[in-house]
């Protein structure tokens, strides 16, 4: 393992066996991760970007020692996730979005104290850290509130404090802002940035399907789809890969209920590289990646011929969403776990 690598993943596969409703039926094999290879440097904030069901959480759970890989090797802080899980657990922490952990009858500070003690913190240190982190996250006035009485956003802030209270070497954040309102999500992101700035030797792995979040926070991003890593680079380099192409966002009258067929038809138009469509509030949003601007006229002509009028048109600088569409051929909002079923 390289000295500067906090995480090394080599040829990791994870296959689940899923049984049908009949008990005696043979289990079906579902591939959650296929030949995954990754290096995360020490001090890096690394993003795993992909739609629901892409395999992000499975990878995080393997690195956090909750799951074993079906094959391959994964090292965290130099320790093997299969054989040296105890050493890894002393160095890591994990926070998931939408967590309902903790005990509702205990107060915020009691729950945090309990988890701090499980990480071996002595009473004094635990209380000092709880005090300072409650203030930092704006939860000081809720310290004696039972967590059953907290809103989703406040509870997630408490989960964040829980995850960072042991001052871990490697932190895994699995969709940390899932379900949070704009303000709470902003607070969480600010906390993450500050924590990483203050501790250059710590490493963080963040899974998200929010493009802006990944773009704002991450030093490098791996795009994962259907269990495979399809690209891994800095956000800037990923976006630069689209500079040669032109990206347009169109709103058109509804195209119909078969998005994949619609996308294939548009992709057949000369000069079109990739298309993604999403039905939103009675209209269809189309992301177009074109070889040149001239191809746009052909697309609009095609849409009008199909009776779908153009409602609005916008030329954009490539975003991570566009990178994803270019590489995968569909939008991040599509849930691949459902397509697989």
């Amino acid at each position, binding site marked *: 393992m390289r000295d500067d690598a906090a995480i090394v993943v080599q040829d990791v596969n994870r296959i689940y066996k899923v049984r049908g409703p009949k008990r005696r039926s043979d289990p079906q094999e579902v591939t959650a991760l296929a030949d995954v290879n990754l290096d995360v440097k020490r001090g890096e904030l690394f993003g795993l970007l992909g739609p629901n069901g892409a395999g992000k959480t499975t990878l995080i759970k393997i690195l956090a*020692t909750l799951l074993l890989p079906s094959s391959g090797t994964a090292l965290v802080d130099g320790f093997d996730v299969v054989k040296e899980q105890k050493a890894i657990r*002393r160095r890591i922490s994990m926070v998931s979005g939408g*967590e*309902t*952990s903790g005990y509702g*009858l*205990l107060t915020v500070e*009691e729950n945090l104290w309990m*988890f701090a003690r*499980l990480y071996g913190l002595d009473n004094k240190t635990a209380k000092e850290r709880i005090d300072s982190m409650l203030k930092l996250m704006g939860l000081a006035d809720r310290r004696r509130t039972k967590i059953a009485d907290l809103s989703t956003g406040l509870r997630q802030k408490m989960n964040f404090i829980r995850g960072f209270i042991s001052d871990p070497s490697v932190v895994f954040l699995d969709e940390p802002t899932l379900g949070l309102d704009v303000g709470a999500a902003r607070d969480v992101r600010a906390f993450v940035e500050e924590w990483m700035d203050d501790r250059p030797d710590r490493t963080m792995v963040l899974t998200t399907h929010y493009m802006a979040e990944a773009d704002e926070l991450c030093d490098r991003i791996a795009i994962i789809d259907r269990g495979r890593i399809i690209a891994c680079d800095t956000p800037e380099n990923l976006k630069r890969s689209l500079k040669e192409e032109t990206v347009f966002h169109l709103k058109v009258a509804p195209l119909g209920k078969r998005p994949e067929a619609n996308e294939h038809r548009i992709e057949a138009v000369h000069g079109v590289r990739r298309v993604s469509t999403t039905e939103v509030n009675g209209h269809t949003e189309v992301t177009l990646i074109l070889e040149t601007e001239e191809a746009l006229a052909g697309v609009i002509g095609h849409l009008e011929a199909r009776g779908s009028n153009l409602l609005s048109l916008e030329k954009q600088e490539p975003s991570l969403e566009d990178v994803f569409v270019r590489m995968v051929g569909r939008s991040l909002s599509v849930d691949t776990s459902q397509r697989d079923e």
Partner: protein
Amino acid sequence: MYTDNRAQGLTLFWQSIWARAYPRIFGMLRERSWMFFDTFLPLLGTLSYVFVYRAIQAPEEYIGFVVVGGAMTAFWLNMLWSMASQLYWDKDMGNLELYVVSPAPLPAILLGMAIGGLVNTTMRATAIIVVCSLLFAVPYEPGSLILLLMVFIVTMTALYGMGMLFASVFLASGREAWHMANLLQEPIYLASGFFFPVRALGFWFATFASILPLTLGLDAMRQLLFADAVTLRFLPVEVELGLLVVSSVVFISTAMLALAKLEERGRREGRLIERRR
């Protein structure tokens, strides 16, 4: 940041026990209605047996048998529902994931659950004994109090060793284990002789039932609390105490092995992270 030396040691083990016991003890104290119903309902069950024995004019020492059995029922239920099943709820709430990811040893977590439950259950058992003893003037004639205390401690050790074993099963399964706990409740009331001397079941059945620590523990405690119980005993107290020590060692060592094995299986099959209520 956390260091290896600190994490490996007894300190972390003891800290983890107290940390996990804390929500059991203080959570219960904050939900007074639970405390009331957890005490009142078993009290009603015990009272009903007392009145049955009174109605059929059974020997008076049977009343004492029922009161002690009623109090010990609380410990059985605590072990079955509040320890093994708690792990199922912890899994469902996402706490189990966090326990596994933390450096806290799982046996310490389970021990914390057991001790937390034991504190609450002792309050409940004491209430049953005090109320029933006052109401029915139970004629206690205690022999050796030291021996009585030893029997109680060893019975609890064996019982919670058995609880850890159940909990490890819950770690790798889930709803199936939940159903198993349901299935176990009533047959064990019968097999352990909660409300009658286990000798009434016949020697071989009582021998088979002795796999349950409460069967031997109850029989021994009754002998030590009531002078006439010797005529209704299953085995002498010293033999029962020896068997309970053996049970404690067997259950705890099996539970430790099972915990390690089933955690590994849980990681392999993804059962530590599933939530399927």
